[in-house]
């Protein structure tokens, strides 16, 4: 189909980049925001603005909280048709209780799963999530949308399009296209090292857009490649290539049984009821063992399997705060006696690589500089894609104007929507979060509506203002949305002050960085957007003046 490899790569880069670029912008931008997802949660849910806590005592805090958990009524109802016999009033055949925490979590998420007696598929379970204050176990309302970890984060890997996991598939495909775009980009660019530092903002817009596109793509090339690749790897076995649950199901089962037998960690319930020994003592023992191995640490993950059954066991995992791996060094105890069952041996080389690649992407480590460098990388990716759109439009604007085509106008409007529109949507949800009444039922749904509504408005505005593009001129929507960003970002920070009293001077003085950091970021966004809007305005005025003087074509 193509004359040369290079030509094929150029075609691929341009057209797949254009179509999937819209999805990739969202993945990179919301991925960058997700680096500080828990901090955004603190800003959005003022009741949780306290210091991160270590994993609390099981006996004093977690146990009562777990015992209170029951599956939500809607889930029970949804499963009824797949169960023979009545659904129990209270579910107590506990499959697991678990709690996970990191050094950035003030509140604790707890999870429970239950087996359902009479279920046609014995593997189908009911489950529930709860949020508690780890200092005393008070349940916190679950109806507050965690804008960071509960919205921006799922948005970046699945566009919150949950129907048949369609969003996850779309983002997955766009990640593959990202990898293809990086390779094809290198093939097209060729002078990778010679032009590494080349950025000529003074030149024609087409050239400087391309320079910036190359610059942001190349300097962070390892970052872009690794994040797209590790993102795919993380979801591969569960979503994209689920061989373990399909074609290789037998091998998977064999492994489960083998592991249960060899390691003494029972796969299923025995049916014989048993008690639960002191879990705090088990945790203490685990911490002693880690320290003996020269890796003293906090508890990151606590799991209790088959609670109340003779086969029950408790697993304590160390938080990977000081390294890339998420959690590790699991130590397992028999639930009814507290006896040590097994201490996980050091990971195999392949498992170590898997831990590294997963931990690299999911970042549960404590390293504030690296976190900010990740945000930098994510924003570089977003700029790379955005300048790609700008280059595409600039290159074709004049040709399309001459032949009267509307094609490039549509692309430009979509580009505005994806770049400035996306930022506006993110700001829209934060502003709505502060403006909506605290006790509003379905508050989270309203916040989500504010997000999508703002984005839709940006699309309409971009389309409505895009007529000049069909004449070869810039779309004024870029400038106008920059100003809108400046206003909304400032409004969000001010609203935080008005509605919670946590203004910058107070949060900075107290050193409460989750809120201070987000407020500072909002102010920085406002300043940058205002500067950009101003610059674009001046350029438009200059072009209008040149245009008014004898109709010469504006030199971009």
């Amino acid at each position, binding site marked *: 189909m193509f004359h040369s490899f290079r030509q094929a790569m150029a075609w691929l880069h341009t057209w797949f980049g254009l179509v999937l670029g819209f999805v990739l912008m969202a993945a990179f931008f919301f991925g960058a925001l997700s680096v500080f997802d828990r901090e955004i949660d603190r800003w959005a849910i003022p009741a949780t603005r306290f210091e991160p806590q270590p994993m609390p005592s099981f006996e004093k805090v977690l146990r009562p909280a777990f015992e209170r958990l029951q599956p939500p009524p809607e889930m029970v109802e949804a499963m009824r048709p797949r169960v023979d016999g009545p659904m129990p009033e209270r579910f107590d055949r506990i499959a697991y209780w678990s709690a996970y925490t990191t050094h950035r979590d003030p509140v604790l998420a707890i999870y429970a799963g239950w087996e359902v007696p009479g279920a046609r598929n014995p593997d189908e379970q009911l489950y529930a999530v709860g949020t508690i204050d780890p200092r005393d176990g008070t349940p916190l309302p679950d109806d507050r949308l965690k804008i960071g970890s509960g919205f921006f984060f799922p948005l970046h890997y699945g566009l919150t399009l949950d129907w048949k996991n369609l969003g996850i598939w779309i983002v997955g495909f766009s990640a593959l296209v990202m990898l293809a775009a990086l390779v094809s980009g290198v093939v097209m660019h060729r002078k990778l090292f010679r032009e*590494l*530092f080349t950025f000529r903002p003074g030149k024609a817009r087409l050239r400087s857009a391309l320079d910036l596109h190359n610059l942001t793509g190349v300097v*962070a090339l*390892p970052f872009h490649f690794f994040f797209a690749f590790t993102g795919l790897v993380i979801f591969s076995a569960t979503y994209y290539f689920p061989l373990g649950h399909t074609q290789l199901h037998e091998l998977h089962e064999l492994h489960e049984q083998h592991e249960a037998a060899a390691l003494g960690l029972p796969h299923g319930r025995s049916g014989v009821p048993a008690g639960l020994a002191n879990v705090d003592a088990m945790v203490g023992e685990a911490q002693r063992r880690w320290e003996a191995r020269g890796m003293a640490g906090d508890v990151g993950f606590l799991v209790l399997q088959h609670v109340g059954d003779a086969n029950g066991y408790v697993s304590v995992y160390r938080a990977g705060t000081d390294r890339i791996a998420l959690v590790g060094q699991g130590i397992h105890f028999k639930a009814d006696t507290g006896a040590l069952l097994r201490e996980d041996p050091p990971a195999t080389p392949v498992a170590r690589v898997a831990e590294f690649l997963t931990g690299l992407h999911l970042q549960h480590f404590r390293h504030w500089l*690296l976190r900010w460098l*990740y945000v930098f*990388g994510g924003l570089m990716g977003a700029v790379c894609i955005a300048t790609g759109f700008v280059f595409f439009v600039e290159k074709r604007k004049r040709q399309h104007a001459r032949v009267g085509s509307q094609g490039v106008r549509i692309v430009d409007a979509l580009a505005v929507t994806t770049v400035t529109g996306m930022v506006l949507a993110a700001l829209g949800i934060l502003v709505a979060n502060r403006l909506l009444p605290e006790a509003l039922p379905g508050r989270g749904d309203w916040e989500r509506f504010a997000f999508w509504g703002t984005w839709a408005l940006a699309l309409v505005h971009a389309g409505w203002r895009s007529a000049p593009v069909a004449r070869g001129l810039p779309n004024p929507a870029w400038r106008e949305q920059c100003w809108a960003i400046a206003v909304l970002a400032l409004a969000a920070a001010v609203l935080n002050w008005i509605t919670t009293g946590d203004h910058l001077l107070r949060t900075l003085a107290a050193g409460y960085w989750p809120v201070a950091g987000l407020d500072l970021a909002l102010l920085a966004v406002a300043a940058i957007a205002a500067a950009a809007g101003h610059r674009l305005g001046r350029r438009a005025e200059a072009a209008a003046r040149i245009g008014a003087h004898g109709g010469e074509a504006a030199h971009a």
Partner: protein
Amino acid sequence: MPEPQIAHGWLLLGAMLACAAGMAWLALAMDVHARQVWGRGLAPAMAKGLRVLGALALAAGLWLCLLADHPTMAVLVWVMALAVGALAVALLLAWRARWLRALAPWVRRAA
């Protein structure tokens, strides 16, 4: 054994600066950028010297990163520091090229 917070901060600052300086020296060793900064190209020996200096600085940056953190994290910090350094140098070359003269004060600019 965790480094005290302050020492950790200094090591990382040193690493970021070393990577930025290294990138700058590598850029200055290139003819097109030497012209941007000094108005003239450099003698091959001088360019080579700057390349060596640049490489040493990048290596020093990696070493500082390894002193600061567990190797799995140190490598990531270093790779990202290289990215930041390269971007900073590119932006300086575009808007304030003359500032980079300070990194090789022994070079005389074009008459």
